[in-house]
């Protein structure tokens, strides 16, 4: 059976071009870049190239790029750095719809005595900017707001927010751009954003490597302490081959950005339109005017997400319900709850996330299978019968 992989916000396939540059770094160029010999030296150059490439995608300087082990570590590093650099400020602002990487850490810090403001969103997933700005004060060490939401694809106006909150007195603005990097244009050269997190495996690099952009001049403190790697900003022997891979993936992402925003977006739109037309009682979640080109979050009333996923899987279709990170739990995702998606629909929400690997054939397969699947499940659902009876 053909695999139809529509779960690219969970993780992506490593691109062939990326793998090609990565393998020599595993096989032959294995030296420790810190070493004083030719095996160390030969490992150093690809590392520098990778840093330049990541910087280029972000419109940043190479020295502003810190390599980490994942998006989660980038997020923790950013928040910890801001709090350490501003020990007198005990206030954090973030949103109710952040990824657990930011949310859990902030909840932990709240228990540790920090005051944390979790800014709410409206039905479309748009931030309550008034509440956000009202919360900022000279006590605010960091405002951490994601660039794009992993579940709905909703894009927040982080550039505008960064400027505003810093003018209102916040010390540091950080954005979790894990889902935005490679999908939409990002330019740190002329920006008020101080720190930005990204993760390799969301843009066709391998899992287990990430980066943190740190604007020159931003006060910093390491999260992982030990050796002098990354100029003392992140200890631990560099994940050399994966960093090289991340560099190449960033270069590729720049090349494919237009395709992502035209062909991929068109596929997503066709999928969405097709499903809405053929499946009654379904609707799309998120801010449709400000959305990643690859993401579609769609709710089917009166059915349950896991059941949909497993039935789709029988046809080779891979998608997710909520985020992969919370799929271990039985509750509807915190993002849908924050948006006030009604219970009748929240449980039956599916996220399709595309990438440049997807084709028209992939979309055809979903459009062929999904109406039948939803219908089968609805026939089994006591609520569907009720809802139909009420209507009649």
């Amino acid at each position, binding site marked *: 059976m053909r695999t139809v992989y529509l779960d690219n916000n969970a993780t992506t396939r490593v691109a062939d071009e990326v793998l090609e540059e990565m393998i020599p770094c595993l096989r032959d160029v294995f030296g420790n870049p810190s070493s004083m010999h030719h095996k160390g030296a030969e490992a150093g150059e690809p590392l520098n190239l990778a840093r330049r490439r990541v910087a280029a995608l972000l419109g940043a300087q190479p020295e502003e790029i810190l390599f980490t082990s994942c998006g989660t570590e980038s997020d923790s590093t950013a928040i910890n750095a801001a709090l350490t650099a501003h020990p007198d400020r005990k206030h954090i602002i973030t949103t109710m719809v952040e990824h657990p990487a930011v949310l859990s850490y902030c909840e932990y810090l709240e228990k540790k005595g920090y005051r944390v403001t979790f800014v709410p969103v409206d039905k479309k997933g748009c931030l309550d900017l008034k509440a956000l700005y009202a919360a900022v004060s000279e006590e605010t060490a960091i405002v951490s707001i994601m660039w794009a939401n992993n579940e709905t694809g909703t894009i927040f106006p982080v550039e505008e927010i960064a400027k505003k909150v810093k003018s209102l007195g916040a010390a540091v603005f950080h954005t979790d751009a894990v889902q935005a990097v490679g999908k939409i244009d990002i330019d740190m050269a002329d920006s008020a954003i101080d720190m930005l997190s990204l993760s390799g495996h969301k843009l066709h690099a391998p899992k287990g490597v990430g980066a943190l952009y740190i604007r020159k001049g931003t006060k910093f403190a390491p999260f992982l302490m030990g050796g002098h790697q990354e100029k003392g900003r992140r200890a631990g022997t560099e994940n050399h081959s994966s960093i090289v891979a991340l560099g190449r993936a960033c270069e590729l992402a720049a090349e494919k950005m237009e395709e992502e925003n035209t062909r991929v977006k068109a596929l997503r739109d066709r999928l969405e339109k097709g499903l809405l037309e053929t499946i009654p009682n379904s609707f799309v979640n998120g801010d449709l005017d400000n959305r990643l080109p690859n993401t579609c979050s769609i709710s089917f009333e009166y059915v349950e997400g896991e059941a949909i996923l497993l*039935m789709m899987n029988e046809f080779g279709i891979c998608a997710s319900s909520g985020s992969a990170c919370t799929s271990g739990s*039985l509750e509807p995702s915190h993002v849908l709850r924050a948006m006030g998606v009604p219970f009748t629909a929240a449980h039956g929400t599916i996220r399709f996330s595309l990438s440049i690997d997807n084709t028209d054939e992939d979309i055809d397969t979903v459009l062929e299978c999904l109406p039948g699947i939803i219908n089968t499940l609805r026939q089994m659902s006591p609520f569907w019968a009720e809802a139909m009876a009420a209507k009649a």
Partner: protein
Amino acid sequence: MWDYTEKVREHFLNPRNVGVIENASGVGEVGSLSCGDALKLTIRVGENDIIEDAKFQTFGCASAIASSSALTEMVKGLTLDEAAKITNDDIAEFLGGLPKEKIHCSVMGRDGLERAIADYRGEVVKESQGNVVCECFGVTDLEIERAVKEDG
């Protein structure tokens, strides 16, 4: 990803006895939309208290659907007294086991059956002790704990 047995998968993809029995002898409803799982079980009771037919409607995950399907298969032909002895463990066992995280789906099956039988007999189901985690189908902390422990 949950490790579902082949039997769970099979009952999920080809559920037996989906639907509602017209003029059922007993109806058991547990759960609600808000908690993400719900079951409506209808039974027809014939001579000598024998369950002649059972049908279900389920809103829930794969193991909830499979558990409901399994339950209807298990109770058909049993007397009410025999059926009342079925535990959620029996349902899980019938399916070749359920992942730990999914035990509560079989608890829902047993609860639905208990209510259907009570409905037929005109009894009131007594509320269990403990904090009700899911008010809608009355599964309590204690019950889940017990179920998880029994599963071992």
